[in-house]
């Protein structure tokens, strides 16, 4: 089991003025699956390239078990990876693909054969040794790529959006398979993705990346429910922020006063956030509500998304079905339940 420390990493690509990564640090515990979540261009993939040694950092250090690996040649680091595309060698059979890593270590034929069989059982595709990669479906190819990566019992598994080109059903299936195998083998794993749901369902901890920096790093549930900053909150789908003066369990905003949980709020100027599915819409005046006007209403199956205009801000609320549809232009009251309003710490 390997733990990974990334220390104050900086990387600039040749010909570019701005570094992709700057002062980037992250530590991954042994056996943990950490997801790196970020928009395109946030430097997610660069981190993986630096760890494997395909790219070299400007400065900073990468350590496995507290020892630097920057001087280790890429092919001896024991960091394997999986991309969006499987990159199975097209001229080799499935067995030869999976056995490639062992062959490079000069393992005996019998050892390789046994290992290939074990891996094929593990990924749930026994008996396909002799086939060629081109004859497998996209999902099967990714399973084989996983087997090929893991056969040498590497120290670290790096996943770079491995599922983003697959259909929804195949994807859910593979997410489960990867998670199961990762836990079974206890291999330290870093998953790069731009899919919030994938990051949350697969990872032990999740890092939000923005502009080459870690904006937040915590367990998915904690980040989802109480993101530490406004940036982090937007990442996890929150877009309603209320600014005002906090005192005596009340948030005094320009629009009105809302009650907040006194034990979770700090007096002084503050920002409160609330998840769209916790906001409620009613026609009648209720406590802890602000008046607004319905601007748009979109049906999404399990819920209806209302866009409500309250002076100087637009609020998105997700009301679960079944609900009475409120017509466009109707005046409503937007309720911010006290127990769901939480204060942003790093405002």
């Amino acid at each position, binding site marked *: 089991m390997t733990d990974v420390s990334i220390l104050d990493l900086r990387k600039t690509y040749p010909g570019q003025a701005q570094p992709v990564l700057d002062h980037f640090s992250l530590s991954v515990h042994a056996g943990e699956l950490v997801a790196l979540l970020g928009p395109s261009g946030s430097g997610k993939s660069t981190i993986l390239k630096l760890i*494997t*040694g*395909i790219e070299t950092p400007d400065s900073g250090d990468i350590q496995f078990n507290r020892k630097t690996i920057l001087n280790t*040649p*890429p*092919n*001896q*680091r024991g*960091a*394997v*990876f999986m*991309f969006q*595309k499987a*990159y199975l*060698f*097209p*001229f080799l059979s499935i067995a030869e693909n999976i056995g*490639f*890593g062992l062959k*490079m*270590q000069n393992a005996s034929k019998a050892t390789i054969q046994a290992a290939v069989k074990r891996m094929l059982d593990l990924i749930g595709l026994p008996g396909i040794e002799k086939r060629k990669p081109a004859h497998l479906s996209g999902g099967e190819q990714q399973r084989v790529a996983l087997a*090929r*990566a893991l056969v*040498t019992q590497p120290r670290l598994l790096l996943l770079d959006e491995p599922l983003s080109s697959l259909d929804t059903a195949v994807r859910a299936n593979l997410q489960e398979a990867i998670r199961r195998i990762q836990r079974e083998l206890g291999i330290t794993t870093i998953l790069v993705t731009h899919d919030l749901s994938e990051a949350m369902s697969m990872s032990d901890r999740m890092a939000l990346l923005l502009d080459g920096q870690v904006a937040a790093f915590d367990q998915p549930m904690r980040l989802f429910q109480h993101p530490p900053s406004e940036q982090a909150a937007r990442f996890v789908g929150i877009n309603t922020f209320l600014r005002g003066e906090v005192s005596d369990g009340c948030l005094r905003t320009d629009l009105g006063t809302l009650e907040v949980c006194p034990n979770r709020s700090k007096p002084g100027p503050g920002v409160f956030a609330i998840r769209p599915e916790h906001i409620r819409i009613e026609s009648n005046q209720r406590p802890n509500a602000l008046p607004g006007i319905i601007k748009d209403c979109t049906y999404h199956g399990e819920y209806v998304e209302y866009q409500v205009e309250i002076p100087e801000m637009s609020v998105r609320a997700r009301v679960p079905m079944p609900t009475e549809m409120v017509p466009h232009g109707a005046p409503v009251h937007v309720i911010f339940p006290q127990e769901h309003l939480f204060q942003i710490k790093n405002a």
Partner: protein
Amino acid sequence: MSQRLSTYTLQLLLYGVLATPLVLFAVYAFSERWFFPALVPQEWTASPFARLLSDRRTLQGLGESLSIAAAASLLSLAISFPAARTLGLRAFRGRQAAWLAFFVPTVVPPLAIGMGLNIFFLQIGLAGSMLGVTLAHLVPTLPYTIFTLSSVFARYDENYEHQALALGANPVQIFFRITLRLVFPGLVVAGLFAFLISWSQYLLTLLIGGGRVLTLPMLLFSSVSGGNPASIAALSLLFVTPPVLVIAATARYLGQHGAAVQEQY
């Protein structure tokens, strides 16, 4: 239905085109008397072939042609490979200039190249040697091999190599087990180009070889002045057969290379 029929017609037509020179030269070579408007020769003979094969210079020409063409193609590939990889894979500012440079050898008259090289080779003692001729042939072959291999590398995905690297392969293993295997069809096509160009080279061989290097095109040229159509045809058949065999042997890679060009779309 009609689309499929026309496909077959086209296929037949094209294979016909490829076989035509062989058949024509063979018929010519074995004909004793053949006058218009007869469709086949009135009399057949094998004597032009007997004459040809009994001539010591024929086998020498075949041997020297094959050696030079083979050496020129291999050298051309070895030089083009790193150049094409750089041109195809890396984006750099001088690439437009590099593309222009492909056209230089096409522009300069072969005569000028030949004379220039001859002066240089005389000084370093390569004039009149097989090695000198082979090196001279690189001038027309290199642009084609670099061009073909660049387009292969423009489609090449280095991530295969990165995968092998992460799986523990060292650079030598990566080169032989992954890179070479992936670009093999393109390599064969480029090599074939180089072989064909070197094979039919006349002027450079004449100028650099100075008569001491004897390839088939030299023999063919001198036999043309002799003027016996059957002998010319027999020699032409000998000249055409090796390239046709090489093309036939590499046909499946040509197809793969063509298919790879299609796939991108």
